């Protein structure tokens, strides 16, 4: 079809449009925000061509993180873990869907990891004073705390659709959902951002999930921190859409007594810090799973940890130990290499 228009005004109009177009260009950019939540720094990024909508979504995502933190923290009397502990073995009715889902997942991974990850280790974590005031407990204190740990003694009942009750079956038993709730919260924050963009990344202290890709079309690039030197990245990963990664390491939170380092990653079965591995990085389809399995693999040690990850569909992992000279030794599942940059 040919359009009949006076040439000179039409040319001028076309020219104006051509010049004005770059000014109106709304190329997607990354809107990001950081804030402290769940005991760590969270950084959320969303790719969008509408900054106002993106910022509102970031607000809602942080609100969701805080909501989940309030429900799951071990350090507030109003939280659900505190309510379950106070019940001292009795059933607690009306448990929230959030804690119900997190605890169900945590207990499943406890079973799959033979207790290397255990969401009932709250009393043990408290005996060591983590995270606020860590100190070396005596053996009797550790043994008493270990006696309260036992994922098999937690029970769930569904009274009616949506009406859930839980009970902690051992005297003194306390939940510590920290090893799975943060990852679960990351997944839910990403759900919020997906309402405005297909491309986002949610990172809470190194537990992170990616959706879509970067504005340049490439997969999100993730650095893995060197266990020996926090200022260095020791490898980079390209994570495709719908992938999460989490790392557990002995180099972040620790204290020393008589030259011995005691870190916060406790073996729930012995009560003492796990010693074989220095860092465990797990890639999974969701961050809650990556979070819990990073802890489980760390506690299991290099050989058993890799074997356990290989048995789990959709999981890949890298465990780092040191050799006698202090050099890093990598142990990884067969599929981990495909994520390397």
């Amino acid at each position, binding site marked *: 079809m*040919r*359009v*009949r*228009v*006076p*040439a*000179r005004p*039409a*040319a001028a109009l*076309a*020219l104006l449009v*051509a*010049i004005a177009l*770059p000014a109106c260009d709304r190329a997607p950019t*990354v809107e*990001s925000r*950081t*804030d*402290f939540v769940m*005991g*760590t*720094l969270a*950084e959320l*990024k969303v790719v969008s061509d509408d900054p106002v909508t993106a910022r509102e979504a970031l607000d809602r995502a942080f609100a969701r993180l805080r909501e989940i933190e309030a429900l799951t923290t071990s350090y507030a009397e109003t939280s659900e873990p505190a309510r379950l502990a106070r019940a001292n073995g009795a059933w607690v009715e009306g448990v929230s869907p959030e804690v119900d889902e997190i605890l169900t997942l945590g207990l499943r991974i406890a079973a799959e990891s033979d207790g290397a990850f255990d969401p009932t280790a709250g009393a043990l974590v408290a005996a060591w004073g983590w995270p*606020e005031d*860590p100190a070396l407990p005596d053996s009797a204190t550790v043994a008493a705390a270990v006696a309260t740990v036992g994922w098999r003694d937690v029970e769930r009942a569904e009274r009616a659709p949506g009406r859930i009750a839980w009970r902690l079956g051992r005297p003194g038993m306390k939940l510590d959902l920290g090893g799975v709730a943060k990852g679960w919260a990351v997944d839910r924050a990403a759900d919020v951002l997906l309402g405005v963009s297909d491309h986002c*990344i949610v*990172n809470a202290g*190194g*537990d*992170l999930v990616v959706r879509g890709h*970067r504005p*340049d079309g*490439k997969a*999100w*690039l*993730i*650095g*893995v*921190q*060197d*266990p020996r*030197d*926090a*200022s*260095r*990245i020791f490898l*980079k990963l390209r994570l495709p859409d719908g992938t999460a*990664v*989490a*790392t557990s*390491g002995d180099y*972040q*939170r*620790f204290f020393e007594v008589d030259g011995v380092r005691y870190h916060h990653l406790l073996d729930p079965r012995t009560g003492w810090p796990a010693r074989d591995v220095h*860092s465990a*990085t797990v890639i999974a389809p969701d961050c809650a799973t990556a979070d819990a399995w990073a802890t489980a693999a760390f506690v299991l040690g290099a050989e058993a940890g890799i074997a356990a990850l290989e048995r789990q569909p959709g999981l890949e992992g890298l465990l780092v130990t040191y050799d006698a000279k202090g050099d890093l030794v990598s142990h990884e599942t067969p599929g981990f290499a495909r994520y390397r940059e």
Partner: protein
Amino acid sequence: MTSDLFSVRGLWRALTPADRIVSLALLLGSIALGVAARPSGEPTAAVVTVGGEVVATLPLDRDSRVEVQGRLSPVTIEVSGHAVRVTESACPHRICVRMGPRRHSGEIIACVPNALVVRLTGGAPDAGVPDAVTG
């Protein structure tokens, strides 16, 4: 007079020589402006926040050292050789100190007990710098 404005050739033919010169000049100017407006190169400053409030902005083009009051303790931040690092903090695990220097746009150093964040701003994100770090 009829003109097919939906083709470049048609548009070009509709213009007089003077129009063409002006159009080319505007086009080149527009491209130059776009390139100039695009951020490039290294970051220009380290912005320090405590509890979300900006408490210091340190230009990276000159070495400096500043002490800010965090939620828990004073924190010393140093700019040296276009990089920023936390050199002193009385926080329990000193993760912020062990993070070492940061020199790329968008990189951050965080101290959770002090609610402190140091963020490198200005410049363009380096495609080779990770979008996030796990560890």
